[in-house]
């Protein structure tokens, strides 16, 4: 029987505010355990949480970027459960009236486009961090993360493969990072994902029993976990069994999912409105202000690059993979007036340098002005493309401008006809055998002569001019 996977994803993204969602403790990562805590985030009795306005602004940005409907009034609720990383015994979240609903994002898979619906986006506080002792029956609690602001983005069950899941997550990640509201660091847990997945016969419209997957901390692991779970559920169903509704943890080392142990009754969170936090109202004026502050989003930028700079969609995709890289390319394109050349130099050379050194574009020693100058010099015929390849290496290593490097090394291109003619006639004179073969019809030897001229000039000859002159002079022989 042919089965179809049905996947829905829950993404938790940590918002890049300076302070926590309901108190003024710092959100900085990696501080001494429990040094960023206060009576509010420690869950002391009698304290009053007060909502950080920036959290709402950031959440609204994401809601607008994913075409959600913003609820004019939304509320906070208490989600009740006991766990040592949750000091109050409840998490402040949004339940009945979330900030935003009914959104969508467009993804590309196998060259086709597909829309994935977003059920809701709501704000909530993160829990603390638990470290389990390997040798003793003890765990250690660090509450620095307790109260750090999160948005939860819940997708519709519109995803049909691990690949689509990956594309959807990368799109969300890209939008969050572009808007600078989340640093997107998956290792530090700033961008986390849980997955709900079930299988159903291809013709069926009702959903099968789902499992919930957790503990996947990279795009690759999420795809691997989903692929494994599709296979596992198919095996269970094909052998006449039924899938148990349960939470399963991804085991990266083994490459399998295992049921979470020690899980008791089904979750019963007994949500109710948090009386400490008053209703949140978002009016048109505020929404307009947020809309105006949105940057150009990656998909729009990609389309604009293809349209305005006439570069291939693939190149535009690479160049817009981060906002900083897109800005870099655009600066070079504008300064040089040669977008196609700018794209080539950035895609081939700059990205290679950066990849080799594991550097970010913001740390690139070659400034956009310098790269634009190099392109202009090539275009004016001052240096050849081949020479430019050496110059750019020097630029990357020293941070010097191309003009300075060319002067220092005496790398000026020979574009003087008389000089080149002299070189060419001596090359022709020195190779009588090749000359007679060429004249006898062995056209391929033309390249040999070009090579000899370039060699004699240490690569400084203007290749176009050499071609031209050589053709003329060989014909005259």
């Amino acid at each position, binding site marked *: 029987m042919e089965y179809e996977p049905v996947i829905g994803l829950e993404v938790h993204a940590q918002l890049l505010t300076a302070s926590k969602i309901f108190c003024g*403790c710092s959100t900085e990562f990696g501080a001494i355990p*429990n040094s960023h805590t*206060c009576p509010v985030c420690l869950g002391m009795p009698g304290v009053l949480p007060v909502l950080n306005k*920036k959290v709402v602004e950031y959440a609204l940005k994401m809601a607008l970027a994913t075409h959600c409907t913003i609820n004019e009034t939304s509320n906070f609720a208490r989600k009740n459960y006991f766990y040592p990383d949750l000091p109050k015994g409840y998490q402040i979240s949004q339940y009945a009236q979330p900030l935003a609903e009914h959104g969508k994002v467009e993804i590309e898979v196998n060259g086709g486009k597909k829309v994935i619906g977003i059920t809701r986006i709501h704000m909530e506080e993160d829990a603390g961090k638990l470290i389990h002792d390997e040798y003793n029956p003890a765990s*250690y609690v660090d509450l620095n993360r307790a109260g750090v602001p999160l948005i939860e983005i819940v997708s519709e069950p519109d995803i049909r493969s691990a690949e689509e899941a990956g594309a959807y997550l990368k799109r969300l990640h890209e939008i969050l990072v572009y808007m600078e509201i989340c640093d997107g660091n998956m290792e530090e847990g700033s961008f986390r994902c849980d997955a709900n997945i079930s299988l159903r016969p291809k013709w069926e419209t009702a959903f099968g029993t789902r499992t919930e997957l957790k503990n996947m901390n990279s795009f690759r692991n999420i795809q691997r976990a989903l692929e494994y779970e599709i296979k596992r559920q198919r095996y269970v169903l094909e052998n006449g069994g039924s899938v148990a509704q349960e939470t399963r943890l991804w085991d990266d080392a083994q490459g399998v999912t295992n049921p979470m142990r020690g899980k008791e009754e089904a979750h019963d969170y007994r949500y109710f409105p948090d009386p400490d936090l008053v209703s949140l*109202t978002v009016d048109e004026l505020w929404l307009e202000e947020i809309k105006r502050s949105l940057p150009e989003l990656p998909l729009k930028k990609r389309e604009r690059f293809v349209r305005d700079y006439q570069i291939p969609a693939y190149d535009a995709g690479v160049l817009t993979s981060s906002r900083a890289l897109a800005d870099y390319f655009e600066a070079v394109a504008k300064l040089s007036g040669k977008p196609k050349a700018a794209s080539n130099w950035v895609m081939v050379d700059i990205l290679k340098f950066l990849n080799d050194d594991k550097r970010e574009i913001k740390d690139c020693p070659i400034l956009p002005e310098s790269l634009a100058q190099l392109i202009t010099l090539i275009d004016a015929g001052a240096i050849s493309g081949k020479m430019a390849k050496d110059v750019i290496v020097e630029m990357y290593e020293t941070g010097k401008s191309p003009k300075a490097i060319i002067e220092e090394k005496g790398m000026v291109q020979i574009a003087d006809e008389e000089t080149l003619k002299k070189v060419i006639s001596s090359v022709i004179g020195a190779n009588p055998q090749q000359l007679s073969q060429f004249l006898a019809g062995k056209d391929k030897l033309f390249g040999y002569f070009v090579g000899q001229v370039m060699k004699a000039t240490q690569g400084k000859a203007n290749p176009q001019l050499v071609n031209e002159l050589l053709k003329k002079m060989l014909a005259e022989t």
Partner: protein
Amino acid sequence: MKITKEEVEYVAHLARLEFTETEKVRLTTQLNDILMYMDKLNRVNTTGVEPMSHAIALINAFRQDVVWESLDHELSMANAPETKGQSFKVPKIID
């Protein structure tokens, strides 16, 4: 009866509370009395009245995104029954 003894036991478990048999019977009666009293409210005509989640008519109480000084580490840990290094120490939850 709106609530059974089993429901009382279930809610008690969720709240991590333990009761004797006598207490369970008493709580079942008390919770039923409360819910029956609430039933009276259901008889009030609320057509056209928005559901209310707060007793005070206040909206949008915000703080600005400014970092304040956290508690002294020692004070933060002062109520902990057990600590290890700079962390709270608790019994292991998963094995």
